[in-house]
């Protein structure tokens, strides 16, 4: 049993907590026997991982009372079925992610997608549902919550990636590549996020009522942004950035609520960076300019 669970059990009465422990022990013993058919004992770490998997499958984190259910075995089967369905969903999300891969090469992105491609063959719904048996090195603009585990983590990661890639596909590939290259010349090999520099530039343009598809932020426009944000308080900056994200979505025809929330999150996350850059005297390294006619690698 994980220590987190022990901390959650106090929502039960003492008597209920004992019954819950007993029920978990019974399930754990059964799972341990299934896992190691010819061994009556297991390393504590393995047993703890099995217990964690049971708790995740049953949703004990959300509701510890599930352990008091009379049909716990059936609950576990249902939980495993739910996880299996989520694995199917992860396959669909992965296919979408592969099909919408941006035309901006990045090794960590392709390596990560390749590794996720083997996830469902290695993922163990029955014994280690909390594990993520693949390498996910590519950095998302807004990372997945560490509270998510197993297939839930992978699916949320893929959902976010699909949102980012759908956004990138709305721009001319050479312009998007130019912004990314301006942000990080070695963008193909380094562990960087491709979405963020493009989204930030597009936001800058939207904030000034320009067409976000242009992507390049000219020095004159950048100075307008500096003038706009320099006097604003924290709350005013947040309001302006949120409004900018809204304009950006409208300008690009983005109606999907998840995407609008994601862009709003990006905009609000930009505020500390804006403040620091303004304090340093320029937004030159936040909103990037690139020569439109330049040859793009």
């Amino acid at each position, binding site marked *: 049993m994980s220590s987190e669970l*022990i901390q959650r059990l106090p929502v039960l009465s003492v008597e209920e907590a004992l019954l819950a422990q007993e029920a978990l022990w019974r399930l754990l013993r059964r799972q341990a026997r299934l896992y190691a058919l010819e061994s009556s004992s297991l390393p504590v770490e393995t047993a703890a991982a099995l217990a964690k998997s049971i708790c995740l499958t049953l949703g004990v984190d959300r509701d510890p009372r599930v352990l008091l259910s009379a049909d716990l075995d059936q609950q576990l089967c249902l939980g495993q079925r739910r996880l299996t369905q989520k694995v199917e969903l992860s396959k669909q999300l992965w296919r979408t992610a592969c099909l919408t891969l941006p035309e901006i090469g990045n090794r960590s992105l392709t390596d990560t997608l390749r590794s996720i491609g083997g996830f469902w063959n290695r993922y163990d719904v029955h014994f280690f549902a909390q594990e993520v048996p693949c390498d996910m090195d590519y950095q998302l603009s807004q990372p997945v919550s560490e509270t998510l585990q197993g297939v839930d983590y992978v699916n949320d990661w893929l959902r976010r990636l699909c949102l980012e890639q759908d956004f990138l596909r709305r721009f001319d590939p050479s312009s998007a590549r130019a912004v990314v290259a301006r942000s990080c010349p070695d963008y193909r090999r380094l562990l960087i996020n491709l979405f963020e520099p493009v989204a930030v530039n597009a936001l800058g343009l939207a904030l000034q009522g320009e067409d976000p598809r242009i992507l390049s932020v000219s020095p004159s426009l950048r100075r307008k942004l500096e003038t706009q944000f320099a006097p604003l308080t924290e709350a005013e900056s947040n309001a302006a950035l949120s409004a900018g994200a809204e304009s950006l979505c409208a300008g690009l025809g983005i109606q999907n609520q998840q995407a609008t929330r994601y862009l709003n999150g990006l905009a609000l996350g930009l505020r500390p960076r804006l403040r620091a850059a303004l304090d340093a005297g320029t937004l030159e390294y936040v909103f990037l300019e690139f020569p439109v006619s330049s040859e793009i690698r």
Partner: protein
Amino acid sequence: MDLERIFLPAQLTVTAEELAQSNRVSRKFGLVLSPAQADTLARRQVEALRETGRIEFGGGILKKLALEFCDSPFIQPEDWADTLAQLQTIFYELKNETKDRLGDDDLIFRMTARFNGAAGGSLDALESTPPEWFFHPEAERGCEAEDEL
């Protein structure tokens, strides 16, 4: 560790009962555990599990060890309880060292072969046997056969 704290009582009960049952067989070889010794062994099992970082899901391994080792010519009745206690610690250590790749029955069978064979009834020799030996015990038998020639 939370797992140990929560599940300790259940392990204690089952082990003591199982040990009492093994007496029926070991008695034939003059090896008998008193209820107090059985209780002490059950407690020492908990220590052994803690020391080796393992959790028991059955009744423990003592009964199987008792049944397998009770006909060893190297074990004296007065040492029976202490020998069993040491054997179970060695067993759990070997489970870890062999990375659980051997089932309980297989490992006990090979421990017995080693103890009654090259180890000459020495628990120290059994304990210091390289883990690899337990995967290929036949290699030693081959060497012994060559020695006999």
